């Protein structure tokens, strides 16, 4: 076993997990507190990436562009909530799925109208564009390292916000018992708007951080949204802590599975078969994990208290 490779793959899994966490944190809050199934969460991820590409071009600085994009994503989320999603809270989940699916189509076309069908690129500053020498001679791309650092910082801030502030208290209360919160005279509409704005900003952050590695393009959030749903189911709907642990778990399993499964399978079956079967099996692993969790602990790993 090659330990340097294993360590590097752990970092890769961690980095993917962090991206998933940013998406899952918003999605789990929106689902847990507002009881809204928001399929268009991936579109907010896409909007974040497009905003970042545009603002980076305008300001000629990735950092400045990213900050502006973060604000724009939040604002976009708030507007979306006020205009479109507010009417959906009293509807059934099926209606919500239908409406937010429509929103995906709408936003994809919206982006096509404004930015065109060909994707965009976000040029990185030179500091972030290379790779760094870490301990034990491990080289790791600087930007992926930056994603990990930013992600951990955001997770910490979220923890402070949710556990140690008044608004966080309301959010937690909302996740545990919504009717009681509104019965106690809390302006639930405002709370919903804030939560949705926060979720949109987190999704936007994930999008703008994924963008320089991949490209900014229409529909970029749809694939990752599936995995994000897996994450919140594993973590427990409404729980940020659960989302964090589950995201890292899923990121790790996906990356390490992809990396080592072909070799492991190759020990038992013919190489040709292993080469073709391994990607298929490794992409199944996270769903297998979800199925196991659902079977033995249907409420997820860390369900919010009282739910």
């Amino acid at each position, binding site marked *: 076993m090659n330990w340097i490779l294993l360590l*590097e*793959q752990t970092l890769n899994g961690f980095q993917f997990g962090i991206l998933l966490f940013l998406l899952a944190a918003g999605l789990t809050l929106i689902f847990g507190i507002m009881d809204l199934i928001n399929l268009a969460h991936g579109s907010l991820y896409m909007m974040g990436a497009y905003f970042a590409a545009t603002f980076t071009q305008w300001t000629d600085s990735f950092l400045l562009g990213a900050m502006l994009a973060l604000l724009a994503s939040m604002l976009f989320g708030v507007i979306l909530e006020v205009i479109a999603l507010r009417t959906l809270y009293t509807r059934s989940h099926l209606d919500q799925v239908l409406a937010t699916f429509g929103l995906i189509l709408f936003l994809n076309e919206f982006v096509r109208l404004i930015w065109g*069908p060909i994707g965009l690129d976000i040029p990185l500053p030179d500091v972030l564009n*290379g790779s760094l020498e870490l301990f034990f001679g491990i080289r790791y*791309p600087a*930007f*992926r390292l930056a994603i990990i650092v930013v992600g951990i910082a955001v997770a910490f801030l979220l923890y402070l916000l949710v556990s140690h502030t008044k608004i966080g208290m309301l959010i937690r209360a909302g996740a545990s018992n919504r009717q009681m919160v509104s019965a106690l005279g809390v302006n639930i509409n405002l709370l919903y708007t804030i939560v949705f704005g926060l979720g949109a900003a987190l999704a936007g952050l994930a999008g703008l951080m994924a963008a320089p590695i991949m490209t900014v393009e229409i529909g970029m959030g749809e694939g990752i949204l599936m995995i994000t749903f897996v994450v919140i189911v594993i973590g427990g709907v409404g729980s940020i802590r659960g989302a964090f642990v589950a995201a890292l778990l899923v990121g790790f399993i996906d*990356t390490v599975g992809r990396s080592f499964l072909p070799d492991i399978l190759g020990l038992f079956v013919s190489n040709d078969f292993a080469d*073709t079967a391994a990607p298929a099996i490794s*992409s199944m692993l996270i769903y297998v994990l979800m199925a196991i969790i659902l079977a033995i602990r249907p409420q997820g790993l860390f369900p919010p208290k009282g739910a």
Partner: protein
Amino acid sequence: MKLRLLGALSLGAMLIGQVALADTVKIGFVTTLTGGAGAIGNDMRDAVELALDHLGRKMGASDVEMIYEDDTFKPDVGKQKTEKLVKKDKVHFVTGYIWSHVLLASRNSVVGKGPFMITSNAGPGPVAGKLCHKDFFSTSWQNDQTTMAMGEVLNQLGIKDLYIMAPNYAAGKSMVAGVTRTFKGNIVGKDMTKFPAQLDFSAELAKIRSVNPDAVFVFYPGKHGMQFFKQYSQAGLKDKVPLYSAFTVDSLSLPRLKDLAAGSLMTQFWAPDLPTPITKIFVQDYRKKYGRYPTFYAAQSYDTIMLIDSAVRAVNGNLSDKDGMRTAMRRAAFPSVRGSFKYGNNHFPIQNFYLRKVIKDSDGNYTTRIVKTVYTNHQDPYAKDCKMSW
């Protein structure tokens, strides 16, 4: 009385309509027009329109009606659109097809059902071999050929240890099969990644760094190729391990990849600087009309229209004469971007393959230049499995 007159008139109009329709060549073109790969389909459509411009929008005396369909990069959608073209639109030719898995899913809805099928890009092994058909033609290549040429190039360069990466779908497997067929060194690592879902190659790049091969060969068409080149450079591998590719760098990605792809080597049947008279006119007019270099996808699509034109002219617009049109197409007697070539018994071109290198042209645009000819008049390895002869 009035009503009967009206009825008769509309019946007459319908009949006249029928007669007029019979003279029109109807061509269905299935490609990807939306999503990340939409740029490719757009390029192909632009090339088709340019070809029609060059033909004066007519094939001989016949009008041409093009029907573009978007497969949205999904085999099931591609098959549905294909069936619509055959059953509802009753087209005479079904063409296009970027993706091998879409083509394989759609094939049975066309061949044997009346229309000719012409692939403008995808060339999976089965349709060139056992599944070859008298009504199926290609104006591109068979998937294995381009990477077989790459294998030869790698041998000539003295590469011993090679690492291969490709997406896990029909074309990815053919491409890998092609390079393994001719490459004589060791294949020290191979990753087939999930397609099209996987866009982040961090795990595979870490493996490449740990194995440290002499060279890496990849096949990543469309947006995947752009991302691969970007991440390869971010991982610090660009200056360490030389990267060779097929169908990964094209005229769509080059303006965005720029220096990331500079000097990159690939094999291909065509390049914008190929010294044939048709390529010269095609590239010049394409750049004039659309302001960019055409991709190889565009060149193949241009040829598709010219091949159909040669068939329609040969039968003087009598579209019911399928045998006549088939005989004409088998002659490949049309002005092709690749110069003159012959069709093999399986209706796939027997053609040259070149080594191309990414350079900057005199205006500062990134394009490719042919370095040398790798294969002359090369026939695909599946032709011998095809029972057809003529």
